[in-house]
């Protein structure tokens, strides 16, 4: 790993100031389980790392009326084991409990995952399907506006996610098919029902998370696995790589959509 300057601010203002005043190439560090492996491979080589982990007030989970608020630095293991999440939206617990592996879940964070927006990461599917609001040190951003393509989000330089507000659904399910070694999702589908409205978000299949509008329409009319049995994603928008062809991903999507719906009703 190449060398860098390491800063450890104790407030959001200090962190933002450090980022904006850096002449050099600076990156925020949260759990580090995407960034540090990349730096070890020299795929990324920032001149400065700004470690956010000692800033107070960025962890914790609370229920506020019909929403669950999760601090940006809350690690996946904490979300997976939280009783409030388990009661309000077990699909979210289930998703968090499958990210990476146990050791990764003890360090990886919600905010880090969202800010990075890896096309194969899990949290973007939950955030998009649960109509979440991403709260930063400057503003609130709705999920539909947040994800802007591979590794790209609406975040501006110096902007730091502080928490995420998830809407609590009537029913939700998350089905994913993991690569056996990397444990990333080849395809992951999060289905959420709010009254008559249904949101279906897919990760892993394309250059970023997206909503499957055909599935949403079918499920809004009749929320049952039979409504989606013939549905298939158009192959030309899906990824083909050494892990899976676009056709296989389309097939996985059809299967996982049904699994998510069944899971949501169980």
């Amino acid at each position, binding site marked *: 790993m190449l060398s860098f300057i390491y800063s450890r601010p104790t407030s959001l203002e200090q962190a933002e100031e450090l980022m904006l005043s850096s002449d050099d190439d600076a990156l925020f560090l949260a759990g580090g389980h995407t960034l540090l492996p990349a730096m070890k491979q020299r795929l990324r080589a920032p001149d400065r790392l700004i470690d956010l982990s000692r800033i107070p007030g960025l962890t914790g989970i609370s229920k506020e009326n019909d929403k669950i608020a999760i601090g940006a630095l809350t690690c996946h293991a904490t979300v997976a084991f939280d009783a409030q999440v388990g009661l309000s939206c077990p699909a979210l617990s289930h998703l968090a409990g499958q990210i990476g592996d146990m*050791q990764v879940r003890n360090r990886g964070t919600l905010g880090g995952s969202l800010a990075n927006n890896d096309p194969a990461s899990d949290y973007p599917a939950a955030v998009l399907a649960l109509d979440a609001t991403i709260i930063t040190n400057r503003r609130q951003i709705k999920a539909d506006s947040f994800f802007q393509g591979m590794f790209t989000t609406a975040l501006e330089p110096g902007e730091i996610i502080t928490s995420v507000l998830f809407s609590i659904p009537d029913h939700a399910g998350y089905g994913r098919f993991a690569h056996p070694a990397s444990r990333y999702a080849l395809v992951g589908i999060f289905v959420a029902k709010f009254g008559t409205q249904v949101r279906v978000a897919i990760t892993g299949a394309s250059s970023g998370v997206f909503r499957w509008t055909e599935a949403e329409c079918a499920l809004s009319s009749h929320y049952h696995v039979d409504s989606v049995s013939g549905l298939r994603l158009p192959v030309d928008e899906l990824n083909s790589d050494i892990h899976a062809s676009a056709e296989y991903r389309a097939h996985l999507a059809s299967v996982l959509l049904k699994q998510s719906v069944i899971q949501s009703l169980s």
Partner: protein
Amino acid sequence: MNITLTVNGARHDLDVEPNRLLVDVLREVLGLTGTHIGCDTSQCGACTVLLDGSAIKACTLLAVQADGNAVQTIEGVAQGDQLHPMQVAFQEHHGLQCGFCTAGMIMTALDIVARHGTMLSESLIAHELEGNLCRCTGYRNIIAAIASGAKAMGERV
């Protein structure tokens, strides 16, 4: 950068470069070579240690991130000459062959017991072991050892 690490109960004041990984500081500065480096990709888990009680991959943490924290390595598991029940279980159930992954398996096992208790199902252990790879055993004896070691931990006074 000056940091303080408490490793296996002993306090160490160290001056380390920010880009030094925790696993390198444990192995090369503190001489605790029981923790192993098995891959370059944060997948194999041979480097697993407990950080404030939670299993983490020491190859994917900068030593400076652990400033002020407590680290437990495999060297801190036995009590002098007396093996920990989890270590005894790995012996009794032939839970290792070459032994390279074993320290990581045991540290992960200790976190599993801390969070899930001493009566562990095979499927739970298998899920929690996804971050620990073994090239020798095929995992059956490792899972059996962890289940047995957990049970023994529950039975000791």
